[in-house]
């Protein structure tokens, strides 16, 4: 993207200038745009690549939705391409169960690890955190660059794994052993190697974020003057720092099981294809699940905390009011961060780990919902009495609140072990976490794109296309996910490649418990249609995103939204080193509509008059 050159127009400035001079010499194309150490360029690199990964992961899901709605029928448009690219697993353009499994595993992996987390944490965090705390860059710029390239390499390996013999990993994004280990193709090995790179990337990133926030806050930027967005990123970074390494350890052991034929996760007497597997045995399948969920539940908060941060900034700005209960938000985010480490086994109620352990994790799960509800309530109350500007960013943020609310509240029956027994592994689970992540997190991320686009490019995105994008996405998201609650409660399992058709009630077996009625299965067609329309609804966004770089309305100020936080007090786009002069902070992050002030916003770097 051409507008983010960290170089400055005064390229005649040669070496020998003091380091404090913001007029750095031109770093050239490669160092300026590709192998850049500037946090803003890296943020945009993360942003663009993760948006592409999101689109790709969405495409995988569309192919799966076709197979669910019309099992065994050739996939239109891309069916021929799939057969040409992937061979017999897509013979005649029809998706085989193997391919369905591979797409399912990769959809989850790509959306979580290569889409939402890099967009919410790495992209927005990289771009905004140093700006919001008044820092010239991240604490370790070169490590920051290494983080991005490690991420991209991991992503590429993940994509390439589709084309190896046997195709990509088929064990689900959770990669439960022994299943994931015993599938006789190499997809899982590639998945593990890619994951190790992605984990390395997130480790480098999180060390950087925490060190930056602790060390590089500008004078006067005390902890309780930090914008909530930065707080959310700070907590997220701690979660990534401490929760990801156990998955790395788990991945190393699964790799050993796969390549060295060890038995970390493989129990004694394991049978495959009717034969006793030639391994030493003695391993524990539960070990993988514990290590995996020790990461993967905190990971849920990695998906949602940056989104909450974005939403709180946008709501404060567009309701022209301070956020309600800033301190409650901060303490709740910290509480979520801590408690997220002791809830993981609520994903494992059905493993037979014992009722006492279940009770413990059920209790902690209920406790963690309290700070989450506090955050959501504070954001709702922030709207009270505000003079709200309904621009696209605000619409997405407003939609986030009830959508995340639905996602959160429907999680409670999954957190209780007795109701989870019925709902576990059904479409109810899919509906629940997609409400949290898709119309929840992803809506917030869209809001962030619309909100900070003018700072990154100097141009606004088109409001008409934006509202079209919002309205259609909102409708189709709900048509897509809400019926899944009903399907799940009716007992539809989440991993069937024929969309439950093999469990359809026939005349002879009517009234048999565990069978699905035609109405439940036919809902698949409506859901899939909503999914395709949701895909179409993203077209205005894609057009808007690229069109506005070149032809969007130019902003006539560095602070087009009249915001208080420091990222709006820089030149647009911010130059290398961010701030033209040394910055000093005098007030909290949300001084909107101060009584007696000349304007309805007072930037954080404006001195307090006594």
């Amino acid at each position, binding site marked *: 993207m051409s507008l983010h050159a960290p170089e400055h127009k005064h390229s005649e400035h040669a070496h020998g200038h003091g*380091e*404090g001079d*913001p007029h750095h010499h031109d770093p050239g194309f490669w160092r300026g745009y590709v192998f850049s150490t500037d946090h803003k360029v890296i943020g945009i690199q993360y942003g663009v690549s993760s948006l592409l990964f999101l689109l790709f992961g969405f495409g995988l899901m569309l192919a799966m939705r076709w197979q669910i709605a019309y099992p065994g029928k050739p996939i239109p448009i891309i069916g021929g391409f799939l057969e040409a690219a992937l061979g017999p697993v897509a013979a005649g353009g029809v998706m085989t169960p193997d391919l369905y499994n591979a797409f399912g595993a990769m959809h989850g992996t790509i959306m979580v690890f290569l889409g939402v987390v890099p967009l919410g944490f790495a992209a927005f965090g990289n771009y905004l955190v140093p700006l919001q705390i008044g*820092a*010239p*860059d991240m*604490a*370790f*710029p070169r*490590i920051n660059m290494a983080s991005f390239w490690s991420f991209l390499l991991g992503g590429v390996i993940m994509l390439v794994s589709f084309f190896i013999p046997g195709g990509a990993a088929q064990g689900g994004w959770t990669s439960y052993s022994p299943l994931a280990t015993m599938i006789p193709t190499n997809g899982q090995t590639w998945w593990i190697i890619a994951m190790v790179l992605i984990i390395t990337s997130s*480790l480098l990133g*999180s*060390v*950087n974020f*925490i*060190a930056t926030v*602790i*060390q*590089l806050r500008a004078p006067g930027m005390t902890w309780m003057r930090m914008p909530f967005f930065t707080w959310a990123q700070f907590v997220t970074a701690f979660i990534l*720092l*401490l*929760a*990801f*390494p*156990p998955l*790395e*350890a*788990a991945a*190393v*052991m699964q790799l*050993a099981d796969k390549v*060295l*034929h*060890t*038995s*970390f996760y493989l129990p*004694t007497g394991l049978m495959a294809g009717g034969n006793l597997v030639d*391994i*030493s045995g*003695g*391993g*524990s399948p*539960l*070990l993988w699940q*514990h*290590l995996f969920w*020790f990461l993967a539940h905190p990971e849920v908060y990695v998906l949602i905390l940056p989104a909450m941060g974005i939403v709180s900034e946008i709501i404060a700005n567009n309701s022209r009011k301070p956020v309600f209960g800033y301190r409650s938000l901060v303490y709740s985010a910290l509480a979520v961060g801590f408690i997220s480490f002791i809830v993981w086994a609520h994903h494992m109620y059905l493993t037979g780990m014992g009722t006492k352990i279940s009770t413990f994790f059920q209790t902690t799960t209920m406790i963690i919902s309290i700070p989450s509800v506090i955050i959501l309530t504070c954001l709702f109350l922030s709207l009270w009495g505000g003079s709200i500007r309904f621009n696209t960013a605000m619409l997405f943020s407003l939609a986030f609140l009830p959508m995340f609310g639905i996602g959160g509240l429907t999680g409670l029956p999954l957190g209780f072990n007795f109701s989870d027994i019925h709902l576990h592994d059904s479409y109810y689970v899919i509906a629940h976490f997609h409400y949290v992540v898709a119309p929840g997190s992803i809506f917030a991320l869209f809001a962030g794109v619309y909100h900070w686009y003018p700072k990154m490019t100097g141009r606004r995105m088109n409001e008409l296309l934006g509202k079209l994008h919002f309205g259609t996405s909102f409708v189709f998201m709900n048509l897509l996910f809400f019926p899944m609650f009903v399907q799940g409660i009716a007992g539809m399992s989440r991993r069937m490649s024929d969309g439950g058709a093999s469990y359809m009630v026939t005349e002879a077996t009517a009234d048999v418990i565990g069978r699905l009625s035609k109405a439940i299965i036919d809902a698949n067609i409506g859901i899939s249609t909503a999914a395709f329309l949701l895909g179409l609804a993203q077209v205005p966004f894609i057009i808007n995103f690229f069109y506005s770089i070149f032809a969007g309305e130019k902003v006539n100020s560095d602070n087009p939204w009249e915001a208080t936080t420091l990222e709006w007090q820089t030149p647009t786009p911010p130059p290398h*080193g*961010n*701030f033209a002069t*040394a910055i000093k902070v005098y007030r909290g992050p949300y001084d909107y509509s101060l009584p007696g002030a000349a304007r309805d916003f007072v930037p954080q770097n404006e001195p307090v008059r006594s």
Partner: protein
Amino acid sequence: MEIPFTTLPRRDTGLYNAKLGIWLFLASEVMLFGALFSSYILLRVGAMPGAWPHGILNVPVGTVNTLVLICSSVTVVLGWAALKANDFAKYRKIQLVTIACAGMFVCIKSYEYYDKFTHYEVVMKDGRVIDGHLVAKEGGGGVVDGRRQPPEFIVLHGVEFAAELKAAGMAKVPLIERLEKQSGHHLEHKEFRIPWAETKRVQNYGPWHNTYLAIYFTLTGLHALHVIGGALVIGWIWGPGAAMWKTDPERYTNRVEVSGLFWHFVDLVWIFLFPILYLL
């Protein structure tokens, strides 16, 4: 604007950036090794009664290696202290000992690995088990249809016993002693020339042999990678990177300190590894 606190500490935290960075990195390392230690516990607790092996590692060799690492931990501090006292020549000498200790540790560890990879357990078709170190593989070999062919004979130096003996209960004594106790007579160490055709299963004591060896190789392998990585960084700072001492001695000393902090962590991990793998 330049990034602040790259060399001098920030007043309210008392840290320069890299020192905070390494502490955060070490926190994540604690979680990495912590997960593996937890896995060790879970695998050991979940093992069939008596199936967890004892005494198959050489304790004196492990003790020597522990002392080598402790020694390096001392010298890495003394080296940094010498720099703080502005004595670069002394730092050069002392830190060389650190690097030498790292090299020695890796050599001793490689010898232990080699010992395990040449230690075979052969199950014969008639039910006998021969356990011993490889002397030679005779005949055979070569590649047919892309598959490596087995040798005609495998020669081991070790002992022979009946299969059920090994499966029987295990005590906290080395394998051979235990087997002797159970069989009631002295097991003679001798050379066995075993025809490959009469074997049912030939396996060395690699990570695939049992879950104990699997976690042993994973933990010590990962630790050895940390030792090698740490030694490379310390060596680079000691050698090619030492030019910085002339241009920016403060920052150079910081680098030595940060690499030293990492080194202490690596040593500390071993202090936990040694008892759980060798002694318990």
